[in-house]
């Protein structure tokens, strides 16, 4: 399932905004609520106390209370009830107090109640000492006073304040949603541009220019650089392959041209039986050469390809003594060495184990030692020396004292189809693939190969392989 980063960022931002906004709105509402009620409560208190002031000592009985009803000047709609502790009503009506009185009486608090469809805020002053007691011979007189004011207006103001706060909250939530949507969109634009440019990378023309937006973005820079490097690698790999195909095509076409010309030559004019036999023999030689070329190309491709595949330990490679493959290769090349009158000296120094397929190792040594023999002068020596190279590597050094390689050619000798000197490779029947194959094998074994040469003094090839 595809989820949009923009959507997720927006949702997250909105959630955070909503929580923050809710807190702010909640606090504002609570504050307004408290302020309005407390102001109403103080008003209530003031009115109740002013009513309390109208309660005095009865003229006729110092123990009785009297209420000066003439002075009552209350806002209309207020309710009150004045009663002495013995339950004798002095003024007002107690009907509105109802059942709540019992519960609220002692609380010295205010409470809300409904009476005749109107909400009231009520307050009780229980056993309040009266202010106006002239006769001090009697104990302090006390009175119970209940007072209520309509709370509708306060409730309406609270509701309005709440509505306004929520409105402001919603509007700011919407504004910040838009801003977030826009900001995330703008922030993502360089990524989208980067993606569209990356999408245009093709093997044939893997040109990748970083969009300016990427260069300015610390987050996108690593991705941009990685894409750039990837494009460069794709281009290099493609160029290498194209070069290889072009070179291979050239070699194959040349091989076919030779075969074709040999056969066409035979076809032209009238030839004797001996000429035909000779021609067929030459055509077969040409075919064998083409076969060798194709086999070498496939071998190189197989090794280079295998190097990219994960190796399963113990299945494709095994731990094998280096001496064994070197000796096998020398054995195989003895006939050639005798033919060229070259002596091969093998110098061993203990046993070295490496990880690799015996046939790959043997192919590697065969290629390198064959080169040494081919380029040696008659009755000279080539040496193959095995030794330690540090604690975790071993070294195989193959040296000849032959014709050497010109300095200008040295950097190219591992390139496929590179032939430094045609007369030399013609003599050896090479296609310029031997050292490429050797290098591919060494790379597959995670080793290194190095070549040193001085013209007319000889060539030394050094292979370093990790120990098993």
């Amino acid at each position, binding site marked *: 399932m595809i989820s949009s980063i923009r959507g997720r960022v927006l949702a997250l931002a909105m959630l955070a905004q909503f929580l923050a906004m809710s807190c702010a709105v909640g606090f504002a509402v609570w504050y307004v609520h408290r302020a309005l009620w407390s102001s109403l409560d103080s008003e209530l208190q003031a009115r109740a106390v002013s009513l309390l002031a109208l309660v005095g000592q009865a003229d006729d009985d110092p123990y009785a209370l009297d209420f000066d009803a003439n002075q009552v000047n209350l806002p209309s709609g207020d309710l009150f009830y004045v009663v002495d502790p013995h339950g004798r009503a002095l003024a007002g009506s107690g009907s509105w107090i109802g059942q709540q009185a019992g519960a609220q009486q002692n609380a010295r608090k205010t409470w809300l109640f409904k009476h005749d469809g109107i909400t009231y805020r009520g307050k009780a002053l229980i056993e309040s000492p009266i202010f106006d007691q002239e006769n001090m011979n009697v104990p302090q007189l006390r009175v119970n006073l209940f007072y209520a004011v309509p709370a509708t207006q306060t409730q309406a103001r609270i509701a309005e304040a709440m509505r306004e706060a929520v409105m402001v909250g919603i509007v700011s939530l919407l504004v910040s949603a838009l801003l977030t949507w826009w900001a995330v969109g703008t922030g993502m634009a360089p990524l989208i541009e980067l993606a569209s440019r990356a999408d245009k990378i093709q093997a044939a023309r893997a040109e990748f220019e970083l969009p300016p937006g990427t260069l300015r973005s610390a987050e996108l820079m690593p991705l941009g650089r990685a894409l750039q490097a990837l494009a460069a690698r794709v281009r290099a790999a493609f160029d290498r392959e194209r070069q290889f195909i072009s070179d291979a095509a050239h070699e194959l076409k*040349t091989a*076919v*041209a030779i075969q*074709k010309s040999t056969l066409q030559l035979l076809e*032209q004019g009238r030839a004797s039986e001996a000429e035909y036999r000779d021609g067929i023999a030459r055509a077969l030689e040409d075919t064998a050469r083409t076969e060798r070329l194709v086999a070498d190309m496939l071998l190189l491709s197989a090794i280079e390809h295998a190097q990219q595949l994960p190796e399963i330990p113990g299945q494709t490679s095994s731990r094998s003594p280096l001496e064994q493959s070197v000796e096998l290769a020398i054995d195989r090349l003895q006939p050639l060495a005798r033919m060229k009158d070259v002596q091969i000296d093998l110098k061993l120094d203990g046993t070295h184990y490496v990880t690799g397929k015996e046939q790959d190792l043997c192919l590697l040594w065969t290629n390198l030692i064959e080169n040494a023999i081919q380029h040696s002068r008659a009755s000279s020596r080539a040496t193959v020396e095995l030794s330690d190279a540090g604690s975790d590597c071993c070294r195989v050094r193959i040296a000849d004292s032959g014709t050497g390689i010109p300095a200008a050619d040295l950097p190219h000798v591992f390139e496929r189809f590179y032939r430094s000197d*045609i007369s030399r490779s013609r003599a050896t029947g090479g296609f310029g693939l031997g050292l490429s194959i050797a290098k591919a094998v060494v790379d597959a074994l995670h080793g290194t190969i190095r070549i040193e040469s001085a013209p007319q003094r000889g060539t030394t090839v050094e292979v370093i392989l990790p120990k098993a």
Partner: protein
Amino acid sequence: MHVLVIEDEERLAHNLAKAISKNAGFVVDVALDGEDGLHLATSGVFDAIILDLMLPGKPGQEVLAALRKTGDKTPVLVLTAKEEKASIIRLLDSGADDYLPKPFDLGELLARLKALIRRGKGQASPQLAVGNLVLDFNTRSAWRAGTRVELSPMEYRTLEYLMMRQGSVVSKEELLEHLYDYNWEKFSNVIEVYISTLRRKIDAGERDRLIHTLRGRGYVLRKGDPQ
């Protein structure tokens, strides 16, 4: 005619040389790398050059450029394994006269080679004529006044060269250079022999003599006055 083959694949070079000498009767020299090829090519004795592009020493493209830089006008037929248009255009632009992609057909190569030589000598038709002497470049035969003249290969080659260069004075050295490979010096006396045989076979009994000897300068094939 004398053709230079510059080709690094020895077998291909020799097959070409053999086919050219066997079928067209031309003399062929072979160079196996670019350096040798250029060195030989600049000697100016060749009537055509077959040049491979991928050469050790000096790439074919450079050989061609260097040759043209010396002012050499020898027709050059390039053998290439690259068939991209751009590469072919670059080749022709840098002075090649024709090209053949590998693998090529020997018959086509010979036909193109002969056409190049003809054009190089300023001849358009494969039938060359001077007076009533006609020489067919393709069938390698000669007629005088409608009658076939039987010629040995060497006599034919000598006549062919003189016909190609008809009207111009051709020195003995030039004949030797174009009819023999690089070690022509040892043949220096045979030219007189071939010329006299040719004269006997072609001019005997004819009113118009066509082969003229200019003492100390060489030979000329033309109708009428040798000067």
